[in-house]
């Protein structure tokens, strides 16, 4: 028995030091102002300042749009993939870009979206004129959606793959049209995958700060950017922690709404 106890020590230490302590510390820190005095003013400021509230609403709105765009692109992708002969191989190809460093993928868009970049060259070629693409909300959302697509495709693919084909056959035998079969059989059965995908995309989208900085320009438009700004630029850790606590609460709300399907989603 003693040997067993020795085994647990490093893991238990990790739980105490790196799981519990940081969460407690961020909550604790959120009650201190920039001069190190105990206060609840951070929360009061947050709840009364139009700047913070607007930023939060904007962040949720962006995350919603990113999730929606990703879902609209990913569901048909998963649906088409599932009907291919070598579906595992094609799925692997969808997943492969997630193994490439995130910074490099984002960096590619700096070149693609630049004033004289390939996208603008193409737009000029089809006579749509060149536009300012970089540092706009649209480009930020596009890049975020681009990054998130595989994380949405995978859980939906898994959910679709689990559907018993005899259910679909039964629906067709009973005279349902393709659309009816999809609406009443396939869609409801794939819903757990969709929920897992939404969870996998929405929370990271709220906390993005790297893509916001590089593609969205130097603006504080997500909760993640606000946290980064307070911690690393203005050094107001108390306010940063307060926003962090808000982000954690938002995370729990999203997980509650979408149900605890995360384990099934393949994102582990």
């Amino acid at each position: 028995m003693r040997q067993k106890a020795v085994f647990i020590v490093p893991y238990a230490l990790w739980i105490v030091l790196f799981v519990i302590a940081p969460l407690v510390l961020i909550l604790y820190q959120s009650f201190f102002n920039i001069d190190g005095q105990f206060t609840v003013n951070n929360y009061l400021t947050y709840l009364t300042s139009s700047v913070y509230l607007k930023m939060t609403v904007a962040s949720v709105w962006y995350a919603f749009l990113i999730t929606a765009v990703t879902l609209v692109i990913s569901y048909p992708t998963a649906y088409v993939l599932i009907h291919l002969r070598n579906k595992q191989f094609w799925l692997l190809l969808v997943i492969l870009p997630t193994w490439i460093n995130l910074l490099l993928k984002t960096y590619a868009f700096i070149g693609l979206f630049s004033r004289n970049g390939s996208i603008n060259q193409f737009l000029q070629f089809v006579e749509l004129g060149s536009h300012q693409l970089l540092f706009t909300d649209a480009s930020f959302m596009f890049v975020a959606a681009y990054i998130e697509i595989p994380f949405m495709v995978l859980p939906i693919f898994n959910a679709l793959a689990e559907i018993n084909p005899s259910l679909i056959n039964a629906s067709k035998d009973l005279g349902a049209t393709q659309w009816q079969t999809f609406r009443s059989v396939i869609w409801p059965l794939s819903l757990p995958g969709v929920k897992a995908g939404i969870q996998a995309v929405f929370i990271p989208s709220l906390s993005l700060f790297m893509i916001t900085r590089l593609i969205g320009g130097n603006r504080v438009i997500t909760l993640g950017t606000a946290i980064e700004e307070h911690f690393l630029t203005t050094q107001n850790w108390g306010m940063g922690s307060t926003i962090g606590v808000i982000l954690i609460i938002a995370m729990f709300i999203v997980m509650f709404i979408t149900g605890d399907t995360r384990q099934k989603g393949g994102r582990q």
Partner: protein
Amino acid sequence: MKKHSLKWSTIYLAFVFIILYAPIIYLVIYSFSAGKTMESFHGFSFQHYMDLFADTRMITIVINTLLVALLASLLATIIGTLGALAIKDSHGKWRNSLMSLNNVLMVSPDVIIGASFLIFFTVLGVRLGFISVLLSHIAFSIPIVVLMVLPKLNELSPTLVDAAYDLGASRWQTLTRVILPAIGPGIMAGYFMAFTYSLDDFAVTFFVTGNGFSTLSVEIYSRARQGVNLEINALSTLMFIVSLLLVISYYFISQHAGRRHHLVTVKEGDAQ
């Protein structure tokens, strides 16, 4: 009708794949351009690769990144495997709470992990740099190792362990001769995932790195903020090749681990 819809689906899929791969191919192509921007191709050249290999700062950072990744994944694998053994031996409520605590860092956004670790290190008085980055990487890699090892432990038949004890094996012998060999593939997969997590992490490292110490992701970020530099393209081509090799080796590891249905594992860190 059937053929018609099939064709549309092929076009759609082709469109999605073009979106997914165009940026990556675009980076690779321009790494061979003799020019200085990603706007027009100026003829084939290895110039940017030579610049990259002559860039001692970048080479130091690559070595730092690899050192952190190797050490962090090794230590995370050891602690994570012990953790999986502990979780396996726990029961009921304990087991559930251990699993929940284990998954906290898996579901937390990277900014939260980074910010809270920064507070933690400051409170403890740990100087920001190699040590803080290494500790953070160990910390966020442990849960993934646990999640990779635990299924293998669950597959291990308890009668096998009982048989070892019946035959007079000590606890230590049972562990090293029966349990560890059986869960070996899971440990390998865990080590591998921890390695790639560490290699690619940006957000957490960015918070705890301080001045003076940098990893590849952080360096790419600071250079990308200054605009296009084709040396980064050359770097991305090399990293793309490394990623491909990693995926291929992971494919073989997971085949070996008998986790064929988990063949496609996404890198969670990327979504942050």
